[in-house]
């Protein structure tokens, strides 16, 4: 035990399963629950949609809400949940000294403006001039800010007054991995005492699905649990809307303000495996060793996306190492991209905190685990690139 231990003292979660750690623990403990999906709106793709959210609860000013599109609102809202949960929200001094690392992609474009330009392009052969003409007159000036990656952090500063520092990492799942790894390293080394870290992904916009489909990553046809999508139509990934934010704190800082922690982050490893070299599975195995998980049976909150190559390699790891008992939560929430690793870490912390493993999310592919877990592994293997693992233990 050390003063510089990295503790998780606040969790904010939103997904199709609801909001907050308790709602997620309950929903994920219900082994018989039907998937919360929408296969109509973006057919032929299935998504896991957002639940009903009363934005006013975390973003009280309507003016602030209007400045954001759904992605930034979702992130700002989820960040507020984490701050609330840690007892930091509205504590001016703690927010003003709090650091922040956000994992972000981009915000939503104006679908109607884009569609209008595309339609007009069929009857004109001066595309570039058409763009100038339409964008100049049709774009809302403030929409740009709702699209900027770092403006999720900017809105968190404005709404929640977190102003110690503000950094935004980009790069799909890798952004979430690097955000937590960097935040933990800062705390461990004394560069920071308390950090807000996390991200959000809002999939209910055609461009967010297009980002995947440009690489043919999306699953099509009837929904299936994540481990059972190999060989099905499409690329295997079912996207979801959601967010995950954590408050990480040094043991010293948490104890001084009398806060209990959900769990401790013992180790994080990240990598950029050269997947085309054929060493994918062996490299994942090496990562699982490097994170120093115990030899005993270990619950794994797997952030597998369903993407065939990546998920196949991760499945291979669990096939060979029978001590690892995976729970691929994207079966229940959909893939949350930048928020995937923060979500995995949050769910791992809840298992430690509640002293129980989740039931299998897919009973055909996952086995039950008995007893209270001492250590839980959280993984995210990016659908295209970048990998991360974190080992969590009791605080």
């Amino acid at each position, binding site marked *: 035990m050390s003063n510089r231990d990295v503790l998780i003292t606040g969790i904010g979660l939103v997904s199709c399963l609801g909001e907050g750690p308790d709602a997620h623990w309950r929903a994920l403990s219900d082994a018989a629950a039907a998937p919360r999906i929408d296969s109509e709106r973006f057919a032929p793709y299935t998504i896991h949609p957002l639940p009903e959210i009363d934005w006013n609860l975390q973003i009280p000013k309507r003016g602030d809400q209007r*400045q954001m599109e759904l992605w930034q609102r979702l992130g700002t809202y989820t960040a507020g949940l984490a701050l609330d949960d840690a007892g930091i929200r509205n504590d001016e001094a703690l927010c003003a000294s709090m650091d922040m690392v956000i994992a972000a*992609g*981009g915000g939503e474009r104006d*679908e109607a403006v884009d*569609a209008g330009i*595309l*339609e007009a*392009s069929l009857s004109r052969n*001066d*595309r570039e001039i058409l*763009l*100038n*003409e339409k*964008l*100049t007159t049709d*774009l*809302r*000036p403030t929409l*740009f*800010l709702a699209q*900027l990656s*770092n*403006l999720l*952090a*900017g*809105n968190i*500063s*404005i709404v929640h*007054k977190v*102003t*110690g*520092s*503000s*950094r935004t*990492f*980009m*790069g799909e799942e*890798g*952004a979430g*991995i690097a955000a937590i*790894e*960097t935040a933990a*390293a*800062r705390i461990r*080394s004394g*560069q920071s005492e308390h950090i807000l870290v996390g991200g959000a992904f809002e999939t209910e916009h*055609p461009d967010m*699905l*297009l*980002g995947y*489909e*440009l690489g*043919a990553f999306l699953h099509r046809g009837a929904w299936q649990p994540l481990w059972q999508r190999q060989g099905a139509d*499409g690329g295997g990934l079912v996207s979801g809307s959601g967010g995950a934010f954590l408050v990480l704190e040094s043991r010293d800082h948490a104890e001084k303000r009398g806060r209990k922690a959900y769990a401790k982050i013992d180790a994080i490893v990240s*990598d*950029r495996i050269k997947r085309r070299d054929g060493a994918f599975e062996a490299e994942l195995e090496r990562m699982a060793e490097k994170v120093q998980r115990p030899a005993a049976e270990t619950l794994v909150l797997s952030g597998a996306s369903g993407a065939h190559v990546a998920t196949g390699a991760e499945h291979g790891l669990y096939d060979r190492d029978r001590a690892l008992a995976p729970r691929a939560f994207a079966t229940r929430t959909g893939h949350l991209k930048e928020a995937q690793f923060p979500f995995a870490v949050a769910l791992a912390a809840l298992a430690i905190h509640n002293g129980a493993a989740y039931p299998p999310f897919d009973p055909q592919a996952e086995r039950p685990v008995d007893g209270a877990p001492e250590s839980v592994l959280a993984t995210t293997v990016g659908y295209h*690139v*970048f*990998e*991360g693992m974190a080992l969590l233990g009791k605080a």
Partner: protein
Amino acid sequence: MARTTDHLGRPLVAVTGIGIVTSLGVGKQDNWAALTSGRSGIHRITRFPVEHLNTKISGMVDFLPSSTKGASPLTFELAATAAEEAIGESGLSIDDFGGPLFLASPPVELDWRDRFDLYKVGKGETAAQRIAQAASELQTLEMFESAQFGSIADRLADKFGTRGLPITLSTACASGATAIQLGVEAIRRGECDRALSIGADGSATAEALIRFSLLSALSTNDNPEKASKPFSKDRDGFVLAEGSAALVLESLDAAIARGATIIGLVTGCGERADDFHRTRSKPDGSPAIAAVRAAIADAGLGETGIAYVNAHGTSTPENDKMEHLSLSTVFGERIRNIPVSSNKSMIGHTLSAAGAIEAAFSLLTMREGVIPPTINYDHPDPAIELDVVPNVKREADVATVLSNSFGFGGQNTCLVMAREPQ
């Protein structure tokens, strides 16, 4: 034996390689010669038609093979070109760098040309369906990767053999400084002996220009060389520009041990977020003031310790006023005697790259003993009493520099650099 730790006992961080690309040219030599002779790289836009646009000038980089290929390919080429020069100068391996990569680069989106092409061939009722249908039948990953936020860093990591998961970051117009800060912090934590920090931005598309224009952030001056006029009374906005810079950062210990030439040191980093507004600073300037103070304190210096300020100096009415307020608050009356100049008067605002490019120029300022001027300073703003090194370079013995970067979303990041250990 030189001291290799700082006032807090942390490893000192040396810069052993620098690479630069701006509208003024490729490489330190050309850039420095142009910058110190007061030449502007701002020119008329030729990359796309300017009909209907309010702004017809920019500091785009138009002379690279990727200059007409879209934001992602150009940003990659800008980053790779600067990194090659920097690693080459450092003497480290060009394809097995062996330290982490921190890349400041613009958010990516699918290029309009690709959208048009997909829409044309796609099938479906709505525009979104047509595009998605065509996308799912693409035979290569080229278009996919151009719209992935992690791709540029992934390719750079391949090319230069950097270690581990590369970090791509955005803190808007402070991004380049943040990339350096992350490298410095990693070395201070003892995670690595060296890091490659790059800021690159090749995203000056028509849509980018229109977006900034709609926020009234851009100069509408039609005279390219005269448009960027930081701290002048008649300044009317920034000039959108492209460029890149790469810095090889090393622990001073490691650099000395391998006999590397030390260009300078990054001795302090400071930041503070602003919670006031998405594009405007808090009226009292307190976040920028706090960032400047934090950087100076992090370097173990007092307010008398800074010899020159490389300003953010965007040439917008708001920034230059607020930057003056911050500097005069921190340095008091003494600010009149500290030279403060803006590279943006010549290269424009290179957005995600600006903090890195300006840190690179700050290091060259110390090494060469020459302060680049603020050009177009013909009508001083009487409310901004600064020694802006007007119009003509100045020879000076500069031992320490403060470089400011302020961005949309309340981002304030400041770096302190020194010629040698204090």
